[in-house]
């Protein structure tokens, strides 16, 4: 898969995501301050440098330290929940879409019911009744309520791949049900699944923040959402201590924005044919497109990874 002609969106978002991951992974080592240690008074103003770069929060703890550890927590929850949702949704969608019949009917019914129930309500209710709230139980709850969307999307793709000829060839070669799913259907959906995963992660991070802001966050760790909870509960907005709520808000926004931007650029990463190199982008769109023989049609958009091959001269008949 060549990396030429990728849109700027991809590079921008990839850089942002990389930066965020860096903050989460090595930030704590750079900042060197325990987020739970008291380093100052109530809402001390930001001062250069070190632990007080972003001031202190309601407990005199370093906002900077909390921000860095909070980012790490949010990302972990997002990744775990996203993975759970994607894996379950993938399995359900794959099996239902490929198998068809009553299995598909049952799985689709379950999916539809799940989609109809507002996830946030379920998450809140379940979280309230959890005996122990830590990042892992939260991630699990979020993941279990988010897989429905993935299942529906994957099912549609899976049932369209089912009609392709290479599946018949696989059956005739004696391949079993799971072998066909794993090797003949899944690879064709992979790009789709990756894009769905990215979306799931960003959704999960937002869910976690929402829960935390409602006071239902992890009991033992700081997350961006809990920072906001404390910031609001202790009146930082009222007293103008912007350093308590602006940094976590900005970081959350940055994370979600970067992930969504990344997801929107992935289509061009996986389908090289959709990329329009720098030369094409410089030329203005030709006006009066109808004058170019209305019978000329554009490229059909390939499903998932199927568009990875480029043959400039092929028009449906095979090369020698």
């Amino acid at each position: 898969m060549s990396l030429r002609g990728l849109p700027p969106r991809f590079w921008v978002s990839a850089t942002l995501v990389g930066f965020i991951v860096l903050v989460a992974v090595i930030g704590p080592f750079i900042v060197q301050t325990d987020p739970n240690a008291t380093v100052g008074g109530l809402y001390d103003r930001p001062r250069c440098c070190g632990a007080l770069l972003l001031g202190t929060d309601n407990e005199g703890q370093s906002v900077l330290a909390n921000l860095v550890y909070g980012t790490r927590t949010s990302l972990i929850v997002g990744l775990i929940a996203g993975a759970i949702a994607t894996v379950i949704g993938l399995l359900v969608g794959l099996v239902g879409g490929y198998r068809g019949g009553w299995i598909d009917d049952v799985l689709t019914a379950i999916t539809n019911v799940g989609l109809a129930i507002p996830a946030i309500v379920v998450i809140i209710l379940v979280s309230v009744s959890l005996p122990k709230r830590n990042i892992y139980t939260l991630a699990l709850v979020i993941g279990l309520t988010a897989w429905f969307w993935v299942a529906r999307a994957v099912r549609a793709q899976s049932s369209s791949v089912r009609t392709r000829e290479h599946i018949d060839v696989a059956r005739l070669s004696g391949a079993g049900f799971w072998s066909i799913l794993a090797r003949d259907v899944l690879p064709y959906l992979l790009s789709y699944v990756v894009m769905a995963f990215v979306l799931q992660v960003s959704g999960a991070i937002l869910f976690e923040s929402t829960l935390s802001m409602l006071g239902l966050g992890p009991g033992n760790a700081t997350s961006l959402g809990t920072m906001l909870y404390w910031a609001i509960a202790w009146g930082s907005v009222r007293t103008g201590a912007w350093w308590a709520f602006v940094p976590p808000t900005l970081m959350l926004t940055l994370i979600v924005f970067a992930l969504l931007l990344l997801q929107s650029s992935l289509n061009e990463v996986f389908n090289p044919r959709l990329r329009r190199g720098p030369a094409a982008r410089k030329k203005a769109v030709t006006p009066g497109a109808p004058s170019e023989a209305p019978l000329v049609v554009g490229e059909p958009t390939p499903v998932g990874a199927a568009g990875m091959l480029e043959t400039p001269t092929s028009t449906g008949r095979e090369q020698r």
Partner: protein
Amino acid sequence: MSAIFAAEHITKTFGRGRRQVQAVKDVSFTLAEGQVTTIVGESGSGKSTIARLVLGLMPVTSGKMIFQGKDVTHLKGRARAEYWRDVQAVFQDPFSSFNQFFTVGTLLSRSMRLVGGHVGRQRLAESLGYVGMDLSVLGRYPHQLSGGQRQRVMIARALMMRPKLLIADEATSMLDASLRVNILNVLTDLRDELGMTILFITHDIGQACYLADRVLVMEHGVMVEQGRTDQVIFNPQHEYTKRLLADVPKLHEALELEELHEIVEPS
């Protein structure tokens, strides 16, 4: 010459109620062992549907199919897997028949595993040899092969099981004319050297003439004529067959064209 396969009053209907389509209507035929039988038909004639019915990839609506004396009309599971040791197919599109993520070796390894062990490896080399290829092609991906090469790999795949019946469903239609002949020659050699029974499905009566021992002509789901190639092509009886032969463009002789009739609309 005994019949290795017999279809009796096969019907296939798609859809329900008023919008039903009968793709295959009450078709009966036999395939003689060790011969090439061709089904010739235009699009919508039902010929490709027949291929899928014979293969068991699709259930018949009514009728019976008999292979080597056994009823194979409603096969499932293990019985169908056994059937697929004796009956194999090559399809029309050499590109979409290939899992683009597989190398040739991966594709063939599935069949090789079915055959098992040492014999499997031998068969691999032999099958490739029959289509004029060698083991060097195992590491290639489909996009690195030409259409003709892909189709030959597909035939090799079908040969791995040493089937008694090979179904070629428009296997040459997407190939250039100059390569088409190569594939037809491979099929002829399979018949002559391995005694394989071949069911060749095409819309091109020229190819049928070159390759087939028997010709079956289909029109809109109905089999209108069948018989030895010489008889059907050089002495057609049915109107449709006659028209088909008359309308086929020939290389050394221009078609007789008619005047267009202007449509006069009632005002």
